[in-house]
């Protein structure tokens, strides 16, 4: 029986684009595009089983072996540091991890900087690298509100076009990491399915280079 490779895809617009890339690379599963609420889709012929999961959970599914491979944002990989292989930059969902603040903000190094973010580990590492004393405020959403309401001096967040920042009279202070979607693999699964996973990676690489 053909070994099926389990693929965790991030739910949402990015996930749909990622699936299209897999399809073009030779791993289609037409039922995935049918309007229904199913979460698992299989094409036994080409040996893949896709499932939709919350984007921030993809790395957990792969690290714990529920999925052999998956597609996760670099932001999630940096924040949670899962023990997985990062096989390919799919050049999709491109954006930056950036520090932003109210327009005209000047960092006063005489006092502790308050930083609001969803990405506490990334922010800690960034400021630790600069020897900067910071107070991290972990938030789960609407990060842009924090400097407006005085909850923080700056925010560390993902910036794509900067439109949300501009609308809230915030500006980028520094972009410090490039973010995009990455193909990841479970380390144990990779050893037992190396050939198949390498085939998928090569197929995706060819499609990525074509874009």
């Amino acid at each position, binding site marked *: 029986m053909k070994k099926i490779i389990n693929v965790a895809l991030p739910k949402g617009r990015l996930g749909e684009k990622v699936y299209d890339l897999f399809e073009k690379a030779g791993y289609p599963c037409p039922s995935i595009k049918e309007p229904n609420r199913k979460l698992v889709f299989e094409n036994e012929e080409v040996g893949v089983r896709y499932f939709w999961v919350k984007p921030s959970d993809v790395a957990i599914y792969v690290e714990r072996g529920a999925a052999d491979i998956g597609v996760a944002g670099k932001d999630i990989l940096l924040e949670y540091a899962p023990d997985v292989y990062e096989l390919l930059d799919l050049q999709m969902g491109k954006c930056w991890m950036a520090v932003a603040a109210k327009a005209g903000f000047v960092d006063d190094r005489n006092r502790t900087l308050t930083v609001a973010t969803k990405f506490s580990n990334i922010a800690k590492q960034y400021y630790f690298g600069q020897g900067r004393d910071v107070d991290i405020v972990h938030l789960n959403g609407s990060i842009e509100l924090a400097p407006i309401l005085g909850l923080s001096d700056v925010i560390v967040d993902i910036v794509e076009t900067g439109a949300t920042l501009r609308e809230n009279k915030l500006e980028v202070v520094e972009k410090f990491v490039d973010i995009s979607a990455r193909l990841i693999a479970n380390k144990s*699964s990779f*050893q037992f399915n190396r050939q198949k996973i390498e085939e998928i990676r090569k197929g995706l690489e060819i499609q990525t280079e074509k874009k």
Partner: protein
Amino acid sequence: MTDYRQILSVEEWTALKLRALYASQGYRQYKMRKFEPYDLYVQNKDFLMDEAVITFTDTDGRLMALKPDVTLSIIKNSRDEDGTQKVYYYENVYRVAKGTQAFKEIMQVGVECFGDITREDLVENLLLAAKSLDEISCDNILEVSHLGVVAGTMESCGLVGGAKKRALVALGEKNVQALKGICAQEGIDEENTSAILSLVVVCGDIDEVFASLDKLAKGDKAKACVAEFKAILLALQEKGVADKIRIDFSLVENVNYYSGLTFKGFVEGIPTSVLAGGEYNNLMKKMKRNARAVGFAVYLDGLAKAEGLS
């Protein structure tokens, strides 16, 4: 007669089989206390997987710690002797479980071999690791690397200091694009960049990659390590275990702990490695021991989750 397999858990049963295996190969059991003076771990924190240690104050006021690692205790409490000393252990260690920020008790069985270690001892240790995996399941793979080859290749191609550290992280992720980026930042030419990327690409069975190993060897250190590594791989082929061996230089975790030969065992159906080991000569030097050492540990805590281990 009592069928003990019906009574024992998969971890207990596997531990028994492994203990019998190691005893049959001439290893003697090393029994130790559950705790050590905390100083031992502070002085050697570079050799621990995680710096977090459970501590308590003993009745005489000394700060003690529950063992987060067995090897440190064995090396600390043993003496230099002629020849090689071969011991096995069956102990619990206490470490922070990844992602939980909580301590966990982990049952470990393992072997340590120290003294005048020869190539034959290294091969014997790898064979014993392969046999240990066979005791857990017939669907297993032993991933093997040589940190001397990795470090020698990187250094002779111009990656040193912080750049080498970042490159090791990227290699551990098999992240070709990140490695290319680091080489570009460091102004490394195309030929040397290609040699560094080969550390990711050269991966597979012994037959598949044996000829490519020479292409990696840049600089005297890497060449000597490649020659040593090839001799070990040939010996493994002669012993008939080549089908279970995968050469993979992305195995660069715990570079502080291991030097030279390093290996990791995987079993189909278990998402993490169940065995990890290698040469730990740096630790021996740090503990002022005039000897080389090699060993491995089998992690039994994940076995219960896998179904149908054969």
